[in-house]
Every structure is written in structure tokens, then in C-alpha cells.
């Protein structure tokens, strides 16, 4: 539960210019809870304190994490504690409004489209402090050897063609969405400077049955405390932080092996979630690839994200063989093609693609759906789309519907410090692909190359599971690097997982009732998220989806767009009929997102103007906007990316004569090995594979055969090969002999 330290308890934000205390509707947001390798059960503590002279209604807007659902909340204040009830949304809103009219303290947690939640707390009395502890079930991003938890501490502004934007004061922007599509969702004010907003922090418990190899965060400085029960406590290292980026937590497993978490839930049934690393399915089969790169060059990508995405695509092109073909589509407001059909991955085509990439400028909105449709048309059935985007769009349900209809696999690399993890995870999953997310302080290009290495032929297809009732359906295939995740109920003893060409039996033990109930809730949250993503405002299917959502909400006790959480606390002294002052809690712009990139081109509000009107511009990049703050130093990885980009279509490095090419290829393998990229491991594994294939046909020399063996075993050959790409055969042999000795 919450850990209020004395230093945090007395926190009161002040204005930098005046030193006066700021009148914030919400003072503090603190995250606690339990994180497992299959998901998290989180408690979000919102502390509201009114500085108004009359009752206040505070509205806090936040985005749900991936595969997440609200379970319940408890509201506490001086002399009272009340728990939420789960009601059909219409009834919940009516009850909330009745409570407001009666002058009672009323709280409503209601989910809108795109997974945006409005937490409304009305009739907070003058000087009163209330705390709303909201329980959220959330999924995690799974990797073979690790998992990543992402929790939103802020809400990024997004693109919608009909959105209106306005800079209402220097460094403060507002976005309004069309009500016919988005209803009465309230978005926060976006502040350039988040240093004087509410305090955020976290205190999480992480447990893993298999143990940890490491825990870290690319977003926040953390403190780790090992606990007796084998768990780990992860706390914010500082006393508090500011709400300008998501919390990202990475947990490395000790052993990447198949594992199932199971137990009996409160419904008396046995629930499980099983994770099977892709390495359990064997090696990725060979086969020609048809890949279309889809690059988001919208305004929000400007600066280093765009630069790194470019470099990443160049390096990915280097992993394509002569049999592969590729396309390249860039989109902002409009879509541009490199060529109007797929091109063989020849040297000439890759050079031309590089020139096309160099000509692209980040600007305009994020018209993702038309770009996906055009890219799918370009790639054709059976192709893979590889999307590099920050995913900052509203109206994601419509985009998902269009993406599902195109019938190709979408693999997403999300970029940003407050980005649409939920949306991009759905986009990949619902089209049979995989997704990864990187924060702004991480490199974009390396994860891109890593993700790209897993595309093409899956390691396993036609997954079938027996031994339990599986729900939701298992994914149709498994890609290298991303484990198979399956969940269901009733597994008693063993699960049998079969795929084309293999099978494995996975014992399902019992982790106790607590884990069983958590697993049950995580399954419910996942199913609700899947169904909500198919909820759009039109179509005959919608009433069926709404009914099913209600059923799921009732079955699992979780909120959804059809069911909301509400609590009304009647107290002595309530003033019926009093209208509380409504205040929307502002959020900080994401750390890597330049405020001017969104709001500089929007109309500015002149407080003195008497006729200030007009349509505001939707998300446009401003040429004068400062570049995003990102890691940009050149290092070994940059050199490897350049090396990867130079690989020829036949898999060898370029050179004037065959002998030169063989030597250059050997040196390239040594360089990749030096940074732990071998045939089986590392982001450049597909590049190493192509280099080895080139050498296998030219392995006359003993030195070449020994280098191939090192690439297979992952053994590093002593020497600085990354920086020394002009070594001789003798020098290589000498280094190899050092290993032998």
C-alpha cells in the first residue's frame, strides 16, 4: 500500500516566479502495487485538496496502460471511507450527478474511447483533502528474457484530423475533440513546464517465480530493496518526481524457460497464464521476406526520433537478402511511397531508399490508417508491415478496424515517453504481429533492428493448446524474441501446446489463491481491452459488443466503457444545489515532446483581443520547435548500424575483389561478435546470419571457418574490430590463436 514519507506529506507546489503556493486541484499521484511477469495489480493514490472558497469538482484524465482495466476505488477523507460500486455507465453517471445535486462528495471513474479515463471527484469542500485509491489491472510487454511495465504519469497530446488546438497562455495548450465521436471526455491542459504540477512517485513490489537477473528503469532513477519472500521492492529514488513521462520498469528473468502462473480465483475456478519463450519452438526457418517499412514522419516525430528511425530502417535494409523484397512508405498528413511496388533488396534499390529517407522531413499530422492501407496494398497478402511511430493519435478504434481489414501483419515499434502503448500493442496483436516500445531516453534504432530480426517467417505457426479452456484465443504464430502467452481456466496438471512441426507439455502448478485471483483479473482486463478496441460508434455489431462488455465487466468485476465505478458519500453539512467549481487537472508535456511541436502552429489566444476566432490547427510541427531531448552520442552501436546498412544483397560486405569482400565480411562478423551479436543472440543476429551464409560458400581458408564457428558459438575474438575494419588476415589469425591458447 501507499508509503507516505514525511518529506512527501508536506509537499506543496509553488510558483517559480512568485514563490506562492499554487492552487492545484490534485497535489499528488502515487503508484503502489504488485508486479508479476504476466501483469500488474496497481493502486494509484490520487490526493486532491481544494484551495477554493466553494466546493470543487476535480477531473483527472489519464490513459490506461496496455491490457488494463479499472477494478475499484476507495475514497478516504477525514472521518469517512467509501468504496466504489460497479454500475452500467449511464446509471453511474446519473448517480454521480444526483450526488452532486445533493451536495454530497461524489466520485466517478469512467472510461472513454482510446482508453482515456476521466476520474471526477465532485463537491470537495473548501480546504478539504480527499484521497482516491484506484485499483488497476495492467498487462506487461513480454520479451523472451524480460518484461517491461509501463504506467502513464502523463497524457501525451495526440493527433486527430478534427481536433482543435490552442495555446491559451504561454506554455499552456488545450485540445478539444469533436463530441460526435468522443462524447464528453475532458482532456487536461498541457503544460510546457511540469515542474510546478502535482508530485508523482511509486513504490512497487516485483516478484517472479523464476527469480530476477536485473531490474532497472530507463525513465526514472529507482531504489531496489530485496525482500525476504524473494520479491523486490522498487521505489522512486528521489522523494518525488514531476508528471512529464511514463514510468517504465524493466525486469530481466534469470532463465528464459516456459512457465505458468496459476491458482484458484475468487470465483472458485482455476486460472492460469502461461509464458513460453520463442526459443522453445526452435529456430526461425528460412524464407524470402516481403516487408514494407511504414515510417511516421509526423510533427511529433521531429528531431532525434526521426533521425534514429531513419538509421534504423537503413540498418534493417542491410538484413534483407537478394531473395527478399521491400517497400517504404512515409506518412504525416499524406502518404509518400519510395516506389509504387515492392523492390528487390539490391544495392541500387537500397541506396535509392536511403536517398528517399534522407529527403523526408517531420511535419504534419498522423494519418496512420491510410498509410497502413496503402502499405498493405503495396506488400500484398502474406507481407509484413513494420511501423515506426509514436502512435500519438486519437480515434484508435477506427484505425484498428481499418488495420484489421487489410489482412497483413503489423509489427510496431513505438517511440516516446508518454506514448500509446495500449494502442500499438493492440494494433500488432490484432493483426498477428509483435510490438515493442522504447522511451525517448533509449535508442530507437537498436530495438528497431532487434524487432526486424524477428520478422518474416514465424518460429511456430498454427498454435493449438489442449488441457484447459483457453480464453482469449492464442495468437496464430510466434515470432523470434517474443514469447507465446496463453491464458485460460481449468488447467489441471499439464498443458499440451502443439504447433506445425512440434509440441511441448507444460506443467501447471498452483501458486495459491492470491496469484489465482490476480491471474483471473488480468485475463478479464485483457479480454475487456480486446473487446473495447472493437467498439466504434457505427455498425450493427456495436450493441452486441456493448452487451458482451457488460457481461465481462460483471463476470470479472472490472470497469469498461459500458460499466463505470461510482461512489457517493453523504455527509452532515452537505449543501444541496450548490454548483461546485469544475477544474481539470493539468499535465506536463512528455519530456521528449517539444511543446512548440504541437502548439506553435495553433492559434494563440490573445486575452486582449475582442474578436479572436477561427479554426485551430491540428497537430503540426513547427519548424522552429526545439529538437527533442534524446541520447545522441555516437558509439559502437552507431558503427554497427553503419556496418549493417552496407551489407550487400548476397550477404557479403562490399569490396572490389572477391578476396577483399571475404576479408571485409570476416571483419564485420568480428565486430558484431565484439558487441555480443552472434547467430542466435543480439539485435544484429539476422545480419550475422547473412554474413555467415555468404562466408559458408567461400570458406576455403581455415581462418574463415574458425570465424564462422565463433559466430555460431557467440565466442568473442579479442581485438577492437568495431573501430578497426582494415585488419589483415595475419592479425585475425593471431587473435584467433589467442582464443586457442
Amino acid at each position: 500500500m501507499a508509503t507516505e514519507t514525511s518529506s512527501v506529506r508536506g509537499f506543496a507546489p509553488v510558483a517559480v516566479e512568485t514563490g506562492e503556493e499554487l492552487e492545484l486541484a490534485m497535489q499528488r499521484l502515487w503508484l503502489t502495487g504488485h508486479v508479476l511477469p504476466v501483469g500488474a495489480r496497481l493502486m494509484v493514490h490520487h490526493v486532491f485538496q481544494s484551495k477554493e472558497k466553494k466546493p470543487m469538482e476535480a477531473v483527472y484524465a489519464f490513459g490506461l496502460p496496455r491490457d488494463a482495466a479499472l477494478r475499484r476505488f476507495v475514497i478516504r477523507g477525514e472521518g469517512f471511507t467509501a468504496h466504489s460500486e460497479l454500475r452500467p455507465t449511464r446509471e453511474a453517471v446519473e448517480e454521480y450527478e444526483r450526488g452532486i445535486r445533493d451536495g454530497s462528495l461524489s466520485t466517478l471513474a469512467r472510461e472513454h474511447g482510446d482508453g482515456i479515463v476521466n476520474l471526477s471527484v465532485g463537491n470537495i469542500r473548501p480546504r478539504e483533502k480527499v484521497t482516491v485509491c484506484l485499483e488497476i489491472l495492467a498487462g506487461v510487454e513480454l520479451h523472451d528474457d524480460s518484461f517491461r511495465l509501463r504506467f502513464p504519469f502523463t497524457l501525451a497530446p495526440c493527433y486527430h484530423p478534427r481536433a482543435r488546438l490552442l495555446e491559451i497562455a504561454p506554455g499552456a495548450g488545450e485540445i478539444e475533440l469533436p463530441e460526435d465521436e468522443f462524447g464528453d471526455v475532458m482532456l487536461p491542459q498541457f503544460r510546457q513546464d511540469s515542474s510546478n504540477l502535482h508530485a508523482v512517485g511509486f513504490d512497487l513490489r516485483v516478484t517472479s517465480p523464476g527469480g530476477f537477473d536485473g531490474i532497472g528503469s530507463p525513465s526514472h532513477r529507482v531504489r531496489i530493496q530485496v525482500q525476504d519472500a524473494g520479491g523486490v521492492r522498487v521505489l522512486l529514488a528521489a522523494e518525488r518526481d514531476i508528471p512529464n513521462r511514463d514510468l517504465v520498469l524493466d525486469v530481466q528473468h534469470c532463465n528464459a524457460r516456459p512457465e505458468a502462473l496459476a491458482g484458484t480465483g475468487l470465483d472458485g475456478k482455476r486460472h492460469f497464464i502461461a509464458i513460453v519463450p520463442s526459443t522453445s519452438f526452435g529456430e526461425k526457418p528460412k524464407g524470402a521476406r516481403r516487408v514494407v517499412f511504414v515510417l511516421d514522419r509526423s510533427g511529433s516525430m521531429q528531431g532525434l526520433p526521426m533521425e534514429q528511425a531513419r538509421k534504423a530502417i537503413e540498418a534493417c535494409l542491410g538484413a534483407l537478402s537478394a531473395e527478399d523484397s521491400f517497400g517504404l512508405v512515409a506518412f504525416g498528413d499524406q502518404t509518400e511511397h519510395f516506389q509504387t511496388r515492392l523492390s528487390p533488396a539490391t544495392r541500387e534499390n537500397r541506396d535509392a531508399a536511403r536517398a528517399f529517407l534522407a529527403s523526408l522531413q517531420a511535419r504534419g499530422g498522423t494519418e496512420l490508417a491510410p498509410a497502413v492501407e496503402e502499405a498493405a496494398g503495396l506488400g500484398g497478402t502474406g507481407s509484413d508491415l513494420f511501423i515506426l511511430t509514436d502512435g500519438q493519435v486519437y480515434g484508435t478504434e477506427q484505425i484498428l478496424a481499418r488495420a484489421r481489414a487489410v489482412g497483413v501483419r503489423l509489427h510496431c515499434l513505438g517511440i516516446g515517453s508518454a506514448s500509446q502503448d495500449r494502442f500499438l500493442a493492440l494494433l500488432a496483436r490484432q493483426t498477428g504481429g509483435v510490438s515493442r516500445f522504447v522511451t525517448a531516453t533509449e535508442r530507437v534504432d537498436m530495438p528497431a533492428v532487434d524487432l526486424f530480426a524477428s520478422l518474416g517467417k514465424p518460429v511456430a505457426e498454427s498454435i493449438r493448446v489442449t488441457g484447459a479452456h483457453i480464453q482469449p484465443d492464442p495468437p496464430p504464430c510466434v515470432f523470434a524474441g517474443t514469447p507465446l502467452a496463453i491464458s485460460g481456466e481449468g488447467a489441471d496438471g499439464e498443458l499440451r501446446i502443439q504447433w506445425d512441426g512440434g509440441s511441448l507439455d507444460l506443467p501447471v502448478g498452483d501458486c495459491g489463491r492470491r496469484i489465482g485471483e490476480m491471474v483471473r483479473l488480468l485475463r478479464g482486463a485483457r479480454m475487456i481491452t480486446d473487446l473495447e478496441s472493437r467498439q466504434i460508434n457505427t455498425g450493427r455489431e456495436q450493441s452486441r459488443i456493448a452487451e458482451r462488455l457488460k457481461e465481462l465487466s460483471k463476470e470479472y468485476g472490472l470497469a469498461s466503457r459500458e460499466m463505470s465505478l461510482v461512489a457517493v458519500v453523504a455527509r452532515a453539512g452537505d449543501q444541496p444545489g450548490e454548483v461546485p467549481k469544475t477544474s481539470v487537472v493539468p499535465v506536463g508535456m512528455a519530456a521528449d515532446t517539444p511543446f512548440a511541436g504541437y502548439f506553435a502552429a495553433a492559434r494563440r489566444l490573445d486575452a486582449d483581443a475582442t474578436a479572436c476566432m477561427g479554426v485551430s490547427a491540428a497537430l503540426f510541427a513547427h519548424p522552429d520547435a526545439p529538437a527533442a531531448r534524446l541520447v545522441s552520442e555516437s558509439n559502437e552501436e552507431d558503427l554497427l548500424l553503419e556496418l549493417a546498412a552496407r551489407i550487400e544483397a548476397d550477404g557479403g560486405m562490399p569490396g572490389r575483389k572477391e578476396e577483399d569482400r571475404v576479408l571485409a565480411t570476416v571483419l564485420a562478423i568480428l565486430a558484431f561478435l565484439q558487441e555480443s551479436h552472434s547467430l542466435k543472440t543480439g539485435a544484429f543476429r539476422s545480419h550475422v546470419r547473412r554474413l555467415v551464409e555468404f562466408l559458408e560458400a567461400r570458406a576455403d581458408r581455415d581462418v574463415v571457418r574458425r570465424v564462422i564457428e565463433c559466430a555460431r558459438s557467440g565466442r568473442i575474438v579479442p581485438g577492437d574490430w568495431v573501430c578497426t575494419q582494415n585488419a589483415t588476415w595475419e592479425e585475425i589469425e593471431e587473435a584467433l590463436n589467442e582464443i586457442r591458447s
Partner: protein
Amino acid sequence: MDGESQFSLSELEARSGVPARTIRFYIARGLLDGPARAGRGAYYTTAHLRRIEWIREQQSQGAMLAEIAVKLRPAPEGQRLAQPEAWLQYSLSEDVRVMVRDGASPWRIRQIRAALSELAGRLSNTDVETRSPDGDRNK
């Protein structure tokens, strides 16, 4: 407000089609007056309803709430300097230039550009049939 109908907040919500929370938000932002009386006897009138309808009309024309709030402020004494506006100029041919106000939304820009492209195409095509201002048909 004498002689005008009186509504509760939920009646105002039903008549205007605007959710009660949004109505409270309008009041908090100074777009709408609070109820005519405080406490249990609080009520709203047709003036509130008309104001809400006017706000919706302004929104449908592209104004945001913050802009509407500025419009509603009483104009100060004396002459005010006009608000500057940026305009983009498109030269479609040697004798035709079109001015477009800067800062439109992307869908509007696309619409305008498509129309201008079509116009530019028609202006450059000397074979198309046109009519002179006095109605004579020319080739």
C-alpha cells in the same frame, strides 16, 4: 429573467443535450452564469439555454472554449488594435493569386489544396471551354 422558464440542472441538460458536468465546466470557465439562485432553490432559465446553444454554435464554427470566453468578456473602452492574422499566398498563374488564412486544420488544408490544384489545372488548360464575364462563350 422574469417571465422566463425555470429549469433544474438536469432539465437544462436534457433540453440542451449538454452533459451536466460540461455545463458546470462552462460555468467554471466563465462561459455561462451560475444558477439564478444558490442552494436548494437553484434554477436555470431560457437565457442559460440560449447561451449554451450559442456556445455550441461557436464551437461548430471552430472556436474553442478559451476563445469563446475571450469573446464574452466586455470590450474595454476605446479603440483596440486589430488582431494580426497570417495569410498564405498561392500563385496559381501569372494573373491569379489566392490568399488562404494560415493555421487551418489538416483536413481543411487538404481540401483547400485539392481545390487550388484543380483550379490551377483548369487555368493552365487553354483548351477548356470558358465563359466571358458578359456571358459569351469562348474557346
